[in-house]
């Protein structure tokens, strides 16, 4: 799934010195026509989405979907159990009324929206993904510490090892390495 599939060469990885250089490089790589590329950093970098030419995240749709599900479920649950399946007279109160149902409707709406937000994020990101060809690079271990990487995937139509490496080096990338399956 995603941009990583393509053997035996997975892609080309270059390190950059700082977030500024990485944004700059991403912007130029995008301009050069590459689409299957990604930047990797220890923290989110502001302006990177635009530099990479990406639009809005779609997590919001999952969240609203979850919210509607939770709302409908809570409404239905209280109506059906109290008003249809087993009506029970409690101090002469109506079997089902909206007012006393509000707290649980609210709680389940929020709960399922949260499920939507998290599951949507994981689904869109293709996580969990315990294996990733990027982990073949020893240098890449520093991505969660203080290193900034740009990876151009071999699945890109324009991908060509030499050109991509030259471009990354020209943009100030160092430790350029080609990701292949280790022998």
């Amino acid at each position, binding site marked *: 799934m995603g941009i990583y599939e393509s053997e035996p060469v997975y892609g080309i990885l270059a390190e950059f010195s700082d977030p500024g250089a990485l944004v700059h490089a991403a912007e130029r790589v995008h301009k050069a026509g590459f689409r299957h590329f990604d930047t990797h950093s220890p923290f989110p*970098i502001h*302006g990177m989405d635009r530099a*990479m030419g990406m639009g809005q995240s779609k997590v919001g749709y999952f969240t609203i979907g979850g919210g509607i599900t939770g709302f409908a479920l809570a409404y239905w649950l209280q109506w059906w159990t109290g008003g249809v399946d087993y009506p029970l007279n409690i101090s002469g109160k109506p079997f089902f009324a909206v007012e*006393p149902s509000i707290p649980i409707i609210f709680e389940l709406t929020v709960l399922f929206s949260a499920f939507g937000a998290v599951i949507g994020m994981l689904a869109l990101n293709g996580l969990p993904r315990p294996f990733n060809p990027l982990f073949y690079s020893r240098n890449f271990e520093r*991505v969660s510490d203080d290193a900034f990487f740009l990876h151009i995937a071999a699945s890109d139509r324009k991908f060509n090892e030499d050109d991509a490496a030259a471009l990354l080096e020209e943009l100030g990338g160092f430790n350029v390495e080609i990701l292949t399956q280790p022998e």
Partner: protein
Amino acid sequence: MADTARDIAIFHGDGHYTDPPLVTGNLSFHEITELVARHAEKKPPTLWYVAFGIANLMLLNLLVMIAYQVWNGVGVWGNNQPVGWGWPIVDFVFWVGIGHAGTLISAILFLFRQRWRTSINRAAEAMTLFAVICALLFPTIHVGRVWVIYWTLPIPNQMEMWPQFKSPLLWDVFAVSSYFIVSFLFWFVGLVPDLATLRDRATSLWRQRVLGFFALGWTGANRHWRNYEKSYLLLAGLATPLVLSVHSVVSFDFAVSVVPGWHTTIFPPYFVAGAIFSGFAMVVSLLVIARKIYGIEDLITLNHLEKMNIVILLTGTMVGFAYITEFFMAWYSQVEYEQYAFINRATGPYAWAYWIMMSCNLLAPQVFWFKRLRRNIPLMFIISIFVNIGMWFERFVITVISLHRDYLPSSWGYFTPTWVDVLTLVGSFGLFFTLFLLFLRFVPMVAIAEVKGVLPEADPHFYSDHEHDYDVPYVQPAEETDKDKPTRS
């Protein structure tokens, strides 16, 4: 407040000021990783073992108390007519209240762009989860027959019975458990990048495997950060009304009844303010110690603690205002029973509890009006303990004093806790501290990725003046014009 901002801000010669750095000590990205991650990797300090041993003994005591209570029934507690809700409910509300600060810090302060939260949110959220676990314990054992606790959930069963959805107690089940789940998701989502940091630093294979499992294969990819940040923002937006609703629903347990002293509409906001108040106090108590022992004073600075003390001052005063409003409303309602309930609180047989509450909650935090006292670490520790004591007594006052004398003087009574009540409360602290110490040992106690993100070096424009020659910068920094800048002399 203006004074506060100015005093801790950095002055420039031309009369302008900038906010002080959120992280001191001029740390690099790598140094932040080191500073936090190493504590989850190496052996903990000796003091940790001592604390863990004590906490474990208290936890053991809790397990014994629960077993004793389940075996013998709820009669081992002091609960009896007319005080049917005794310490277990007091303890429940107390712990739920403490469990409010974490999500408040992580969600509401996030939405308000209060970036100082990044240093403290992880520990505060963990504290929230553990406090809510302690809270959930009490109603669970309070039902008496714990083996049928699942009756509170809408699970189809052979009796074809359903929970009573019109009961505020059932709303509580949904509110507190939803809160726990959402807080857990929020905490875990925030933790994923830091678990990846630990995974990448791991030296042994099993550690890599375990952390690799929990880090979900995180690579810091921008395609992931994009959805991640959106998801985090949405979770913050969802947790904000949730955190306000939980203690409101808890207060419905009381407010929906007809007992004098309970039947008031002020309860939801008053409970929420009290919850934030007690939660922040607990965060201060814990972090004052943790930052010292783990040497992370550069990440959790005195400025962070001062800001928390300001929140304590604010919410404490709100709570105190609510206490006084309750008196006013009782007088203004012209209802004899309401009036008696409040006079009895302040002057009756439980007056000692009422005045402990008043002095700890309303008076004690007032010292934080003074900057010097607000930044005094031993003092803030003492005040935070006072606040926690005071907030426990607030719940005692509300629950027990209201019940022990209501409409019918012939059924008045006096509640006394038993040793089981006391030891169960002590034991719940054991559970809380055991979990918190395990958290300090195995999980990065500060959100590493987030703290890096608030450093000036994390901004791509930090580098734009030198080294790199942008053709067109994609995002222009929001330049302040001279006109917009506040001028202060």
